[in-house]
């Protein structure tokens, strides 16, 4: 990884939540502990971890909603973890990272879809003509053009998330963090949002971080990072990470079902090549094991 390609660099990152009085309580356990992470521009990374493992804390630190207790965060070369960073610089860097949250109802602000998409760019002071162009493009990208003048609250969950994503796209970020953005969606809504995520990455080169509890979804990324109790424990291609089935179980996680099935078969003495991960690969591996070559 060439230094110039690095978009996010996190070094020795620690974060401890304050107690009610706002003091850094010494006995509180840290949400993140000595975390190192580098993400190259244009990468598609899934982040896994049990509830409370520190995933969302990391997302909030990367988007500068929280300031680290110790350690450094560089976003596109800017050291954003320093308490001395100027407001101007924070605003400049925040434009580079967009976030999509879990509950679609919590992130729509306007009464008409296109106005909702306009909210972000409007606050960036984008000119009217440019803004109209961006809104049109963003709605097209998420397949919501025909709903341009609809009321957001009448849309389905998946459609709302697509509008929320359009609002982010219209700000032209370099990176989008999806914080369990598919958790509330029906299967079709999930498929749509994942597809958009992948198109943004492939077609626009946007760096995508997808925080998720759906293992099949995580397996589609180029890279999977597993965080457990505030520490990074696994980091590699989906095949590498999901080969640690027992370890994932011990952290309260799972592998995609096909992988789980092959793992279970091997445990009861039925030898199946455990290199498979996608459904197709799993079918192939089980088929050859049963047909006995």
């Amino acid at each position: 990884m060439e230094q110039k390609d690095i978009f996010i660099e996190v070094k020795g990152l620690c974060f401890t939540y304050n107690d009610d009085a706002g003091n850094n309580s010494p006995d509180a356990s840290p949400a993140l502990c000595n975390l190192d992470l580098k993400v190259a521009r244009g990468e598609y990374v899934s982040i896994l971890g049990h509830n409370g493992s520190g995933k969302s804390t990391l997302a909030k630190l990367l988007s500068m909603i929280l300031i680290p207790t110790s350690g450094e965060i560089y976003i596109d070369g800017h050291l954003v973890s320093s308490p001395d960073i100027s407001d101007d610089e924070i605003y400049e860097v925040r434009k580079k990272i967009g976030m999509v949250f879990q509950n679609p109802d919590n992130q729509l602000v306007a009464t008409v879809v296109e106005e909702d998409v306009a909210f972000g760019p409007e606050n960036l002071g984008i000119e009217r003509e440019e803004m109209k162009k961006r809104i049109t493009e963003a709605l097209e990208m998420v397949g919501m053009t025909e709903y341009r003048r609809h009321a957001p609250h009448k849309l389905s969950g998946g459609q709302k998330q697509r509008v929320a994503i359009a609002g982010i796209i219209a700000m032209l970020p370099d990176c989008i963090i999806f914080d369990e953005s598919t958790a509330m969606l029906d299967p079709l809504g999930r498929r749509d949002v994942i597809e958009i995520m992948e198109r943004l990455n492939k077609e626009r080169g946007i760096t995508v971080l997808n925080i998720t509890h759906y293992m099949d979804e995580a397996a589609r990324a180029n890279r999977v990072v597993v965080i457990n109790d505030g520490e990074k424990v696994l980091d590699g291609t989906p095949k590498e990470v999901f080969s640690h089935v027992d370890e994932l179980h011990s952290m309260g996680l799972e592998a995609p079902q096909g992988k789980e099935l092959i793992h279970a078969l091997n445990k009861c003495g039925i030898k199946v090549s455990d290199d498979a991960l996608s459904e197709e690969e799993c079918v192939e591996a089980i088929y050859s094991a049963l047909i006995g070559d």
Partner: protein
Amino acid sequence: MDSVLEVRNVSYLYSKGTPFERVALDDVTVSFERGKITGLIGHTGSGKSTLVGLLNGLNKPLSGSILLNGIDIWQKPKEIAKIRYKVGLVMQYPEYQLFDETVERDIGFGPRNQGLSDEEVGLRVKEAIRYTGIDADLLSKSPFELSGGQKRRVAIAGIVAMQPDVLVLDEPAAGLDPKGRREILGHLKDFVSERGASVILVSHSMEDMAMYCDNVVVMNEGKIHSNGTVSEIFSRADELISIGLDVPSVARIAEKLKSRGITLDGELYTVDGVKAAIRKYIGGANNDL
């Protein structure tokens, strides 16, 4: 079938009489079997949440009737509040409804309102934490000190403590990790078998349906699309996909193996089920030799 809840020809409209009028439920008739966990699935806007809100009398059907243990729940409209103790509804993100100083008081809130004595409330709380997998050490804590998954379970315990005949859960595991899902959903079976209660589980996770439910009701565009046992429903993959739903990943794997000539036999919708079927397949093949 012994039904605990019966929905008969129920229709419901939103924004009735305005230009935004929308049919949410269109002449729905369906029964929920006593002592079973019934899954309720459908795309967003298919009418699941509307139906769930009618089951405990939060809303009143515009036409048709809802029968609990054979009696119309709206027979005595003034006593509808009693129905809400019998059909306990856990809404989405119930942890936002926690409010009391301790976990114990929060769980006991419902039973106290039912007019039970302190002693009885205490017993109800004890029972409720067992069915929701909450550690007794947490009882004296503030609910706000707990993790997301624990809070969710405390909120569910608050409904379980009212000893409803039917427990209705709307997306109880959304946003939880695999272990958290198991902890919430895995205990439902005990609640059902020991108390003779019934559960209705709304979820978008086909894997959860396969793991925890006995029956599944599928809704589509305000109507009942299909209704049957888990294996009956998940044997209709193409139909489910065509209405925006899905089948568990292992079910697709089993289906693809079948198309390549390996026909498995058994419960082909959970990892354990397919594993057992493959073992049986191999055993069968060996016996043929």
